[in-house]
C-alpha cells in the first residue's frame, strides 16, 4: 500500500509507512546523512498531509522494520494493549493531534499509554509545532519511586552528574558536594565512569553510597557503566541502586551497545534482588538519543526520530525510574545546530511522556555542533514548561570527562525559580533540614566536606 498527496500541483507518492514517516520529519542532518529525508520543503509538507490522513490502526498493520527481523518490532506489536487503544482507535494521525491538544486530560493520557505504539507517537509529533509538543507533554503525569518520588506535578528534578576525567574519588566527591549545595541530586547522583571496569565501578559505587549515607540523602546513586559491568558489581556485593544502560530502537543498535532484551531483564532482576529501594522499586535507568541507530548502521532506513521513539518501547518494558535522551551529545552529523537540537529534545520528551515514561532530557551540545548556551537556555526553559521530569546538573555546565556542555546546577535553580518548580518532596524536605539554600553561600555544618573525606 502506498500514500500520496498533491501539493502545489505536484503529486508526491510514498511507498511505505517507513518512507512516509521519514519524509514527513522536520529537517535534521541525520536523516539527510541516512538518505531518507524529504527532497524538498514541498515533499516534506506533502508527506505531513498524507500522514495526517492515515488511520492510527494502520500502524498495527504495517511495521517500519519487519516483525521477523527485529525483536524491538516484536516487543512493540506483541505488547500492544488493544483495550487501552480503544478511545483513539477511530482517529487518523491528524485527528489524534487534535484530540491530544483538546479533550485529552492527564487521566486519559495515562490510561492510553499502553495502547500507543512508538510509531504512532513519533508520527503525530511530526505534524506538531514546538508549542504543541510542549502543551501536550505538560498534561502527562508519570510518577516513579526508589528512595524518593519523581515526576509529581510542580516538581523538576536534577541528576547530579559529578564526572571526573580519571574517576578520582576526591574529584567526584567535590562535585557531588557542590551540586548538593546548589539543590541538585534528587533524580540520581550518577557518575559516568571514565574507565568501564568492574573494580573501578565498585570503587565509585562505594564512594557514592558513602556520601549518601554520611549526609543521609533521600536519593539514589548510579555508576553508568555497561550493564554487564553492573551485573558483575552486583555479584561482587557492591551497593547498586540503579542499573544503567544506553539503549536504542532496533535489535541491531542494541547489539552494537552489547545488550539484548534478555540481558536487560536479567539486570533488572539482579537489581530488584537487592531490595535497596525504600519507597518504590523502579530500578532501571536508560539513556537514548536520536542518531544512535544510524551511527551503528542499524537503522533499516527509518528516520532517527521514529527509531528514538522505538527505544522508549524498550525502556518501558523494564519500568525504569529514569529515562533521558542525551539530545545534543551525538554530534552535528545527526543534529547540526541549536534549532535541530531544540526540536529533537522536545520531540523526545513528548514521545517518552506519551508512552508513559519518566522522561528527562540531557539538554546539551558538543563543541563541534553549531550551538551555544543561549540555545540550551531556550530548550531548558521550554522543557520546564513542558513538565520535564528531570534535567542534568553538571558543575558550571562543563562536563570535564565527557567533553560536552550540559545544564548546570545554576541553570536548574534558575528554571525552578522561573517556573515555580520544586525538587522531589523527600529531597526538598532534606534540603530544608540541612539548611541548604537558607544560608546563601555558606556550607551548613551538617554538610561538612570533612565528612566525605575532603579535609
Amino acid at each position, binding site marked *: 500500500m502506498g500514500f500520496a498527496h498533491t501539493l502545489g500541483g505536484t503529486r508526491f507518492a510514498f511507498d511505505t509507512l517507513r518512507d512516509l514517516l521519514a519524509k514527513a520529519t522536520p529537517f535534521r542532518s541525520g536523516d539527510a546523512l541516512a538518505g531518507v529525508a524529504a527532497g524538498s520543503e514541498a515533499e516534506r509538507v506533502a508527506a505531513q498531509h498524507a500522514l495526517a490522513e492515515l488511520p492510527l490502526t494502520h500502524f498495527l498493520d504495517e511495521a517500519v522494520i519487519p516483525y521477523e527481523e527485529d525483536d524491538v518490532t516484536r516487543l512493540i506489536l506483541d505488547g500492544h494493549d488493544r483495550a487501552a487503544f480503544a478511545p483513539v482507535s477511530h482517529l487518523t494521525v491528524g485527528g489524534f493531534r487534535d484530540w491530544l491538544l483538546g479533550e485529552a486530560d492527564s487521566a486519559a493520557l495515562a490510561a492510553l499509554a499502553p495502547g500507543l505504539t512508538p510509531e504512532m507517537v513519533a508520527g503525530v509529533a511530526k505534524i506538531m509545532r514546538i508549542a504543541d509538543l510542549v502543551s501536550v507533554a505538560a498534561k502527562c503525569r508519570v510518577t516513579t519511586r526508589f528512595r524518593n518520588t519523581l515526576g509529581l506535578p510542580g516538581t523538576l528534578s536534577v541528576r547530579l552528574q559529578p564526572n571526573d*576525567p580519571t574517576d578520582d574519588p576526591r574529584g567526584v566527591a567535590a562535585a557531588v558536594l557542590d551540586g548538593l549545595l546548589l539543590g541538585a541530586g534528587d533524580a540520581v547522583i550518577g557518575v559516568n565512569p571514565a574507565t568501564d*571496569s568492574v573494580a573501578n565501578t565498585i570503587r565509585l559505587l562505594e564512594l557514592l553510597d558513602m556520601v549518601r549515607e554520611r549526609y543521609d540523602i533521600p536519593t539514589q546513586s548510579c555508576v553508568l557503566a555497561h550493564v*554487564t559491568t553492573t551485573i558483575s558489581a552486583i555479584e561482587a556485593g557492591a551497593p547498586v541502586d540503579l542499573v544503567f544502560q544506553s539503549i536504542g530502537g532496533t535489535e541491531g543498535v542494541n547489539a552494537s*551497545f552489547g545488550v539484548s532484551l534478555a540481558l536487560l531483564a536479567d539486570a533488572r532482576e539482579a537489581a530488584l534482588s537487592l531490595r535497596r529501594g525504600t519507597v518504590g522499586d523502579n530500578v532501571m535507568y536508560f539513556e537514548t538519543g536520536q542518531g544512535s541507530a544510524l551511527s551503528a548502521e542499524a537503522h533499516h532506513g527509518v528516520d532517527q526520530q521514529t527509531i528514538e521513539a522505538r527505544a522508549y518501547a524498550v525502556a518501558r518494558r523494564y519500568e525504569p525510574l529514569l529515562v533521558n535522551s542525551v539530545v545534543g551529545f551525538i554530534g552535528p552529523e545527526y543534529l547540526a545546530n541549536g534549532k535541530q537540537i531544540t526540536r529533537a529534545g522536545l520531540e523526545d520528551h513528548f514521545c517518552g511522556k506519551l508512552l508513559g515514561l519518566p522522561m528527562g532530557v540531557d539538554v546539551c551540545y558538543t*563543541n563541534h555542533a553549531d550551538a551555544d548556551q543561549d540555545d540550551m537556555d531556550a530548550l531548558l526553559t521550554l522543557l520546564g514548561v513542558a513538565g520535564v521530569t528531570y534535567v542534568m546538573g553538571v558543575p558550571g555546565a*562543563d*562536563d*570535564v570527562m565527557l567533553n560536552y556542555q550540559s545544564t548546570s546546577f545554576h541553570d536548574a535553580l534558575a528554571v525552578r525559580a522561573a517556573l515555580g518548580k520544586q525538587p522531589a518532596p523527600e529531597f526538598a524536605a532534606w534540603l530544608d533540614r540541612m539548611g541548604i539554600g537558607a544560608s546563601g*553561600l555558606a556550607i551548613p555544618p551538617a554538610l561538612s566536606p570533612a565528612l566525605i573525606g575532603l579535609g
Partner: protein
Amino acid sequence: MAEPPSAWRDLRRFTAARVGLGRSGNGLPTRVHLAFQAAHALARDAVHAPLDTDALARDLAGLGLAVSSVRSRAPDRATYLLRPDLGRAGNADDLAALPREGGTALMVGDGLSATAVQRHAVPLLASALPLLGEAAPRRAVIATGARVALGDALGEVLGAELVIVLIGERPGLSAPDSLGAYITWAPRPGRTDAERNCISNIRPGGLGFAEAAATLAWLVAEMRRRRLSGVALKDERPAAPSLPG
C-alpha cells in the same frame, strides 16, 4: 555576594570541574560567565585547527616507526563534521600504497582535535612501545579527516591482527586536547563500537601517559591471549585504593 566562602571555593583543589563558582541570584557571576564563554570560543576554534602532518611524521620517525599517510574521503573540515561516513572510509589510492605486513597496526588520526594528537600521541607512544614488546607496531599511519573506524579499513589492508587507533577526542571546555585510544581485534570494516576497547581522556591533567600506556599494553596482551576485543574483554586489574573514610 557572588563569591562563595573559602570552604566552598576550596573544593576546586580536588577537581578541574567548575565547582565553587559562587552565584549572582541563580545565575553565574560575571567573571565566571565570561571565563566560560572564552573557553567555548577556544574549543570551537580547536575543532577547526588542521593537523601539522609533517611535524607529526618527524616525531613518529624519531620513535623508530616507519610512517605512512592516509586521507579519508572527507574533502574538507565542514563536510567532515556532517559526514562521518566519509571520515570512516580511506582514500583508495592512499590505502593501496600501504604494505600488507601483519602484526599490530597503528593509526594516528586527527579526529575532532588535531591539537590533542599533535601534543600527546608521541609521548604516549614513547611510554607504550616498550611495554608492548613483540606486539609493538612497526609503522604509524597518519590519518587526516579521520574517524575511529577508519582504523578498521587500515587494519584490514595492512593484514593486522589488531589495530590501535590514537585520535583526537571532541574538545571540551577545560580540555581541548584529550586523546583517545581505541583498540580493535581483527579489524575490518563493519566492526561495531561494542567490539572495541577504549581508553579516553589521555593528557597531562587527565589520564597520564604512563597509566594510559600500561592499560593499553594490558589490553593488547589480553586481546592476543583471548583473541577478542570489546565488551567481552574487561579491565579486571585491581583498582587504586578508595577514598579513605
